[in-house]
């Protein structure tokens, strides 16, 4: 029997260990949510681990007991006692209702505290003044506007490491979802709405960012690099961005509304003020969607004349 228990134990533990181990294993290269590069991701991960541990404490014994009961009471086991009329026990029922209830009480506390502490809208406590970034989801690219610096960037988010970010996020088109797995929380980008997200990159690095809400045929290409740089390099990047590239005025913005997948990231040296608010307030037209007669079968849907 002991051997069987051991086998069952390892059969349960090994896959779990494999999953967690491998997800954490690629820490520095993969965009794993288990290797956060900032306090938000770390906070989310603690909650994830806590909740898992709380539940495993009850799930594992239950699984083992299920297997054990099924094995022991198999029809061929003559040593097991057959109790054909044992169908109710008040004490057991009390236990059966109270175990999950207690677990959920405990978990409910974690949920309540976690939801408030890690609310994406809540500012991070830091002595450094946050960097403001305005994010507009387009078909199928991300536009990042730096109102304090007066520059903008397509599909590349450059930020100073160690400085809190305050992102205001909207969509010029369909729903999208702004997500940098290693920095933590994601949030929807929705037309006519402004979402807020507070993030912080602890250390320099290039972090994979993506849209986590399906947004059409170009969705798979809606990823971007979030580059956290030391403050000096960030200033240098801003200076470079200001020196070259087109100007993002309303006319240029209208050009972005057509469906496209830019081959490489690029920057704008200046941005018309109030652009983000105009988009969020729907003062500017929404994304154009597929245009008839352009781009062949990949863009024009069948049967839609």
């Amino acid at each position, binding site marked *: 029997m002991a051997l069987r228990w051991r086998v069952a134990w390892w059969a349960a533990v090994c896959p779990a260990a494999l999953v967690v181990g491998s997800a954490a294993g690629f820490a520095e290269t993969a965009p794993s949510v288990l290797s956060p590069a900032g306090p938000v991701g770390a906070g989310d991960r603690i909650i994830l681990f806590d909740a898992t541990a709380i539940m495993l404490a009850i799930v594992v014994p239950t699984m083992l007991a299920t297997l054990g009961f099924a094995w022991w009471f198999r029809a061929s086991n003559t040593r097991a006692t057959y109790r054909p009329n044992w169908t109710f026990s008040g004490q057991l029922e009390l236990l059966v209702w109270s175990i999950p209830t207690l677990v959920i009480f405990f978990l409910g506390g974690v949920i309540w505290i976690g939801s408030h502490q890690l*609310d994406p809208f809540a500012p991070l406590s830091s002595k450094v003044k946050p960097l403001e970034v305005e994010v507009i989801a387009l078909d199928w690219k991300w536009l990042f506007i730096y109102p304090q610096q007066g520059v903008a960037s397509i599909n590349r988010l450059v930020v100073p490491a160690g400085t809190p970010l305050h992102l205001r996020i909207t969509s010029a088109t369909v729903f999208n979802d702004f997500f940098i797995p290693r920095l933590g929380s994601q949030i929807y980008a929705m037309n006519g709405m402004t979402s807020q997200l507070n993030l912080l990159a602890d250390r320099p690095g290039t972090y994979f960012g993506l849209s986590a809400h399906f947004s059409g045929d170009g969705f798979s290409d809606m990823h971007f690099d979030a580059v956290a740089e030391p403050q000096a390099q960030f200033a240098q990047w801003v200076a470079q961005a200001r020196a070259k590239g087109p100007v993002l005025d309303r006319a240029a913005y209208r050009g972005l509304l057509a469906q496209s997948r830019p081959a490489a990231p690029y920057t704008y040296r200046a941005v018309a003020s109030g652009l983000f608010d105009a988009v969020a307030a729907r003062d500017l037209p929404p994304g154009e969607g597929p245009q008839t007669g352009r781009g062949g079968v990949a863009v024009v849907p069948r049967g839609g004349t």
Partner: protein
Amino acid sequence: MSLLGKLSWDAIPFDQPIPLAAGLLVIVCVAAVLVWIVVKGYVPYLWKEWITSVDHKRIGVMYCALGLLMLLRGFVDAIMMRSQQALAFDAPGYLPPEHYDQIFSAHGTIMILFGAMPLVIGLMNFVVPLQLGVRDVAFPTLNSVSFWLTATGALLVNLSLVIGEFARTGWLPFPPLSELRYSPGVGVDYYLWAVQISGVGTLLTGINFVTTILKTRAPGMTYLRMPIFCWTALASCLLIIAAFPVLTATLAMLTLDRYLGFHFFTNEAGGNAMMFTNLIWAWGHPEVYILILPCFGIFSEVISTFSAKPLFGYRSMVIATLFICLVSFCVWLHHFFTMGAGGDVNAAFGIATSIIAVGTGVKMYNWMFTMYGGRIRFATPMLWSMGFLITFITGGMTGVLLAVPPADFLLHNSMFLVAHFHHVIVSGVVFGVFAGIVYWFPKAFGFRLHEGWGKATFWFALAGFYVTFVPFYVLGLLGMTRRLQHYTVPEWRPWILISAFGILILIVSILCQVMQLVVSIKHRNELRDETGDPWVGRSLEWTTPSPPPVFNFAVLPDVENTEVYVDVKQRALAEFAREPHYEPVEMPRNSPTGFVCAFFATFVGFALIWHIWWLMIAGLVGAYATFVVFAWRDVPDYVIPAEEVARIDRAARAARQGALASAAPP
């Protein structure tokens, strides 16, 4: 405007070999089957005994057949998705986005609405009246209408394979993406009308079964004597009545946006797309429980039968079922914590969601204690149930993880989520449905399914499930989102390849399942169930012969105990043999109303999709005329004379007595 609306030769994908070949193959297969039926002269039999049948048992079997067929179709989509992702690392793969997006949308829609729903409803159809000890459902003809409307929806979805396109929006068509501006093709329209038409069918089923369970039970069957499967069916149908109108309304709003330029969810004129997300999940979350609750009922029946014990804590189970039923309406927001509703709202819905786990946990323990002190036979239905017990519990755990808002902020819409809902739906609904099919198959057809092939199916399905979906959890933790047509992150690739290998194991499992059917039909004489009670069952359906006569029960049983049949078996054989007083039985006549209605509904749906207005009007007039003709008939019932009832019942009793005499009471 042309006579055929938007329909033209451009709608046929001549330039895309994959859908064209698949479509042609399906057309050839369907045509071959039709020709075979006509040549063999089966048409009158099919028409009289099946297509126009209002017998709940026949309709149940047809529902299950439809569900299994659609399960296969959905699985083909799954193979394409897995192989596309396996090939599409830094490469375009073989499915362009505009095709791949249709595949995953169709996969979800078909699996949930045309695979799982018909299977669950089919089993309810077959089993509930038998377990309640009555002769049919409350509204037999309406039942036939429900089935054929569901079939219409399935037909429309599959038509989109060859004529036009399917939605490219995911299985829930979220606006603004599904609005005309971003999805100008007919794909979303196919989705809308197919789901709308079948949704009406499902709603009618819900009404039918709630009425049946609450108003037509055998004498003596109080609520707390109903078998647990009837309770779960009741809970599921209550959810249908409360949730499906929400789906109807929501899809109607999207339809108005697309067809008449309304502004419910558009980006213009004050439309609010978040409202769609809320409304659709107000249906979508209860929908999950509509599927899973009857499966919980199946597991309860199976575990109790094969442990040779009554269900432990029956009352707790009933309470837990109704508890889940109620709370499932208060949790929809957990599907979009990342919309940014704030800490209070998110926490409230997160806690509400985890409270559901209390009900499920109670059920888990009661199943466990049902096995405790039992004499467990590991026949195929019990294996499926065991697979469920140990698999579902971890699936539920990952579900509660996703209900914790900060954890969801990391895992929302990721492959972790995809892993979670496949985990619970495969282990809960699919395993449950297969347990139910193997369990009740002898009752429906009079012979058992082959055990060896059944067990092979189970083991391959279990292994295939883990190999396919555990890598999804890893992928989710590695930051991979769902619905990617191609990707560039190298760390994801090995896990995607492992998952693709898992699909191969699942293919083997499906082949075993097909073999099981073929072998069982071939050896049906050896597998014949003469007694009507092949598993030493416990509830009323096992008192009938296999297959049951059209009237189910010669005389409505008078119920005195929760497990009435066990009770009878334990009391005495003599009591069972005492012949009742036979009376003529009145049964509803078969009616083509359902089929004809669905025929017109198909044309209405197709016409609406392609904007062929004259055809739509003609179809509506036809459907109305069908109802009037049905309403005008003078003789809705026919009578089976008492002698005929007695003759059938005596033969069944003789077979039963022989069997009971040979089997010692437990």
